[in-house]
């Protein structure tokens, strides 16, 4: 029953990550992404998925999808109905699932974050409806398969599991919220294992939207740089398998890291602009630390939301500086959006996997293009590849509409 539920455990369960899948413009899977993020490689190129000739900005971080998906339980007909977003989601989920070594299961919750779901199918539907109003071919299929819950069911079918599906659409905080919600479900005894993640594909409407807002950088995406002039868009997906520590130990599973803290709240300042002093950002970082039982002094790296827009980075820099206090002067911060762009609903999940990489492999992801710090940054920005001792990291995600999320991950050694 969703209600009444069984009583929460007196001590919340510890939640560990035993599988991670990641798809970005840097590559398909952990290894190429870890190599790319570690080097601070930027994956931007001219947009090829749709016409950008009349847009102000013409580049983004596009994913090179394989022409044939690896075998899953999905039949050819189902695979043909996947759009780019769905294909990236299935790929990421497959990698995480294999790494975790999970078997087909029932009553296994799936929590996903997305801003657009199958918007590419929605765009096709709209174009055909307007340009060929009497042609109905494929329209019913598009009307069904553009819906994110249907894409989520494809993940379940591909990996042969079933269970409650929750789709969180808190704009660009969606991926972080999805993992945070999954963490909550396990901690409070509502599930022993959860599949969670986030995804979004690059689409014409969203690209045009950010371009119309003049939020896209016409030069280079440089989060927290005093010369920053906007964000860059990307696409991708990341999925993690979460389970109680007890479950992971029982199975003898390899543990990639532990999620120890989560905070979320809403900034009511403006639909698209954060509060200049970042009050809600400060609040969610404090909440995450409180739930993890640690202080800013114990955080070794922050994977910032860091979009590269003037307003976001100033607000986030202010909040991080305030939150970290004296620790700020030595606290390494970077935004991996400098490498793969802003993945919107996928951002929080992809950045969560980057955090796991830093914990597993003991390096920090640099922003190679970063040169001149914004005066609001009281902390160092990682701008060169570097190895580091990393035991605890914090990842920020903020969205249009004001929902903010922060996650804390701990090294498993």
């Amino acid at each position, binding site marked *: 029953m969703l209600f009444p539920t069984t009583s929460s455990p007196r001590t919340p369960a510890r939640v560990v990550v035993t599988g991670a899948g990641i798809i970005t413009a840097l590559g398909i899977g952990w290894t190429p992404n870890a190599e790319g993020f570690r080097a601070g490689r930027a994956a931007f190129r001219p947009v090829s998925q749709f016409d950008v000739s*009349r847009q102000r900005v013409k580049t983004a971080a596009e994913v090179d999808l394989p022409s044939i998906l690896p075998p899953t339980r999905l039949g050819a007909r189902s695979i043909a109905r996947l759009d780019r977003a769905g294909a990236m989601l299935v790929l990421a989920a497959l990698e995480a699932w294999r790494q975790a070594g999970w078997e087909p299961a029932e009553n296994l919750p799936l929590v996903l974050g997305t801003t657009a779901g199958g918007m590419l199918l929605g765009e096709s539907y*709209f174009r055909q*409806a307007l340009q060929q*109003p009497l042609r109905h071919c494929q329209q019913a299929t598009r009307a069904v398969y553009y819906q994110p*819950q249907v894409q989520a069911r494809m993940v379940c079918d591909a990996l042969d599991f079933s269970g409650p599906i929750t789709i969180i659409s808190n704009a660009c905080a969606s991926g972080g919220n999805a993992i945070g919600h999954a963490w909550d479900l396990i901690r*409070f005894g509502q599930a022993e294992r959860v599949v969670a993640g986030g995804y979004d594909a690059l689409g014409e409407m969203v690209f045009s939207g950010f371009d119309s*807002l003049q939020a896209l950088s016409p030069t280079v995406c440089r989060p927290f740089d005093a010369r920053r002039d906007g964000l860059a868009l990307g696409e991708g997906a990341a999925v993690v398998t979460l389970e109680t520590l007890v479950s992971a130990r029982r199975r003898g599973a390899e543990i990639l890291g532990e999620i120890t803290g989560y905070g979320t709240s809403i900034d*009511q300042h403006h639909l698209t602009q954060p509060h200049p002093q970042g009050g809600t950002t400060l609040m969610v970082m404090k909440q995450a630390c409180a739930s993890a039982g640690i202080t800013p002094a114990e955080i070794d790296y922050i994977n910032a939301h860091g979009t590269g827009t003037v307003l976001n980075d100033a607000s986030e820099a202010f909040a991080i500086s305030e939150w970290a206090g004296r620790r700020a002067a030595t606290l390494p911060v970077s935004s991996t959006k400098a490498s793969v762009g802003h993945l919107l609903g996928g951002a929080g999940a992809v950045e969560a996997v980057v955090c796991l990489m830093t914990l597993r492999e003991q390096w920090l992801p640099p922003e190679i293009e970063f040169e001149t710090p914004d005066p609001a940054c009281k902390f160092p920005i990682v701008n060169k590849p570097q190895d580091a001792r990393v035991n605890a990291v914090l990842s920020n995600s903020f969205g249009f509409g004001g929902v903010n999320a922060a996650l804390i991950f701990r090294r498993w050694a």
Partner: protein
Amino acid sequence: MSRIFVAGIGAVSPAGWKVAALRGALDKGEPLPVQALPRPGWEKPLLARLVPNPPVRPEFLAHPRLRRTSPITHYAASAALEAAAGLRSKPDANNFRLGIVVCLQSGCVQYSCRFYDETLKNPATASPLVFPETVYAAPASHVAALLENVALAYSLVGDPSAFLQGVALGVQWLEENRVDACLVIGAEETNWITADALWHLDRRATVTAGAGALCLCRDPKLSAGIELAVITDAHTFSARQSRTQAAQAMRRQLGKNSPGELLCDGIGDSPRTGAAELAAWRDWAGPRVSPKRILGEGLMAAAAWQCVAACDAVAGGKFAAANASLVGSNQQAIGARFTAVAQASCL
């Protein structure tokens, strides 16, 4: 185990801008008239049941954040304010930590179509004022700004059954003491593209729009005489479980009907779409109400109306308990039961 109460309900529907209008239409039991919805490129219009203009311009529309919003936010805000009216009139209202869960299936289609149409014509002139209103999270953000003391706000997307997932999320926040009350809102707006999509999927259904809201709380003193008794599991449709099997599993968890119980089902005008739910409730001998037959296919709003109607029937003393059966279109089946709270335990 904690007890969860319903502190208030709100609704906007093609019947009008309050729960009373919804109640009136359901009591009357006659399908509301349909309107023509011009469809570009077609001579024959599509049909819809549109939300009438409010008799008086709602005061909340003067809020700066709501200036450029599309109807889905107006509907969500109106339903939320109506549901939260009891809380907002309390002297300590400002100390309340409110949660908001907005559930959507189709979402902000009006501005999405408008913005994409502008993009296709010429992206250089596509309006930056319209784009932010296209995101699923926009209504929740605006309602949060309107209500001010909001601590948490999520937007959930899914088929209509996700409304009860939203209720379960609100319950979770209450049980974890993250909020003192939680508004769960189901909202949709419509335009020709939604009607067109529905026409492709189910030609007997008539698209409609609106919103419904429940305000949940743990404090029995705030109860409007309604208690949330049960939300079943989410019975997901899958290769392992058909829609019909999922509906039956939900039905089994709600149990057999007792005298004095109402069923608010999601049966509409299409026998094919309603077959799974009809089969699941074949043995139901008690009274039932089917809001979609009267109001139309309102997607997530229709799911919210079912729950609002169930709560309203209990609050009005007509029934000791009411069940809401949400058999979604492509995700899952979930049901809930609401019961009357004895007056003594409200005080």
